[in-house]
């Protein structure tokens, strides 16, 4: 087993969970409805908790402890995709990101539940059951608002068009994809993307929304290799502000 390849995989999925979890938590107290406020806060707690479990596996593979890994790295050491670091924007954008990302996330952990690396397979089986609720929540709202009023449809459409190049960046190829596949650890980003396209099309087809021509878009990539937008570092500064006051404090 190639440990470097495994660590690269774990870092990118853990970082995705942590960063989107943090973005979701920014809705706490600001949701358009009380139920949505609670939904995004709960999903934040799930995703941050899942990242913690993934960082724990990395810790067992020799990396620093989860708190240090989460709070003490700079942007260029993070491997999340650009999509999760973008600001929340209006609710329509957050909802579209929730739908596009969480569908990919659900499929990714479903694939990883069959991974040959047992600690990851067991955790993924667990996470898959939790993310199912996130995906269900996203699907309900996209189906409802994607076929409701002119306003809701046009706002979602605009966000969908804006989000799509970033969503494609979720599947940025890793330099280890072939090895991970050969070792039976992960089937790879292109296999995941094919499943994702099928799933999102199935939901979008039940609405008035139009899926952009994915082949005509340039994916926003670089995140998996530590290149980020200007939005990540301020997020990390805010997230780690309290931790950095006293990194040795016992919580």
């Amino acid at each position, binding site marked *: 087993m190639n440990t470097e390849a495994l660590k690269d995989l774990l870092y990118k999925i853990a970082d995705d969970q942590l960063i989107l979890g943090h973005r979701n938590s920014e809705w706490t107290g600001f949701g358009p409805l009380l139920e949505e406020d*609670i939904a995004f806060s709960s999903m934040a707690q799930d995703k941050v*908790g899942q990242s913690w479990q993934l960082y724990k596996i990395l810790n067992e593979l020799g990396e620093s402890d989860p708190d240090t890994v989460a709070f003490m790295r700079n942007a260029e050491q993070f491997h999340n995709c650009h999509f999760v670091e973008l600001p929340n924007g209006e609710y329509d954008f957050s909802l579209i990101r929730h739908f596009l990302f969480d569908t990919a996330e659900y499929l990714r952990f479903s694939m990883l539940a069959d991974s040959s690396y047992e600690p990851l397979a*067991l955790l993924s*089986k667990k996470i898959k059951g939790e993310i199912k609720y996130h995906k269900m929540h996203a699907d309900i709202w996209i189906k409802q608002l994607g076929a409701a009023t002119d306003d809701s449809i046009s706002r979602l459409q605009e966000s969908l068009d804006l989000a799509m190049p970033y969503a494609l960046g979720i599947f940025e190829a890793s330099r280890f994809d072939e090895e991970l596949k050969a070792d039976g650890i992960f089937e790879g980003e292109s296999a995941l993307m094919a499943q994702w396209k099928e799933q999102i099309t199935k939901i979008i087809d039940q609405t008035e929304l139009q899926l952009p021509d994915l082949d005509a878009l340039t994916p926003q990539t670089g995140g998996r290799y530590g290149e980020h937008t200007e939005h990540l570092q301020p997020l990390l500064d805010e997230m780690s502000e309290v931790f950095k006051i006293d990194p040795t404090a016992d919580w």
Partner: protein
Amino acid sequence: MNTLQSHSEAEIKAWLDEVKDPEIPVLSLNDLGVITGITIQDNGHVRVDMTPTFAGCPAMDVMKSDVEEVLEKRGIADYEVVLSFKTQWNSNMITEKGRKALKDFGLAPPPKHDLIVDIELIERATCPQCNSENTEMKTPFGPALCRSMHYCHNCHQAFEQFKPL
């Protein structure tokens, strides 16, 4: 001299009845179904295996240290409490006693399922106050990771359900 063998696995399990879920204080860890194994080695070493309900459940560490406290209180010095995903928790593992405790507490117990959790299953909730099935799910999320929120059209009360997982 050898008092190490004086406790049986069943006895240790019974002690754990006093450890409750910190977020649902009427539910013991045994009834929640998170204690997945108790083994005593020949040298007296006690191992308790636990499985998390949710990956990010903040109550798990509290439950783990509560178990450790009970073992120490009972004079067990050589022990380990291991949290792992090897045996995966699902809501069917809540015992009948636990389901009754949840209902008495005002939380609808999770519907039993065949490990296929879909939207129809989540929407189905029986009101813990009046037992009506004329209820509506308001959101699959709630005040804790393990709860969803519902409304009863019969007694006009909002209530929470322990989510099926």
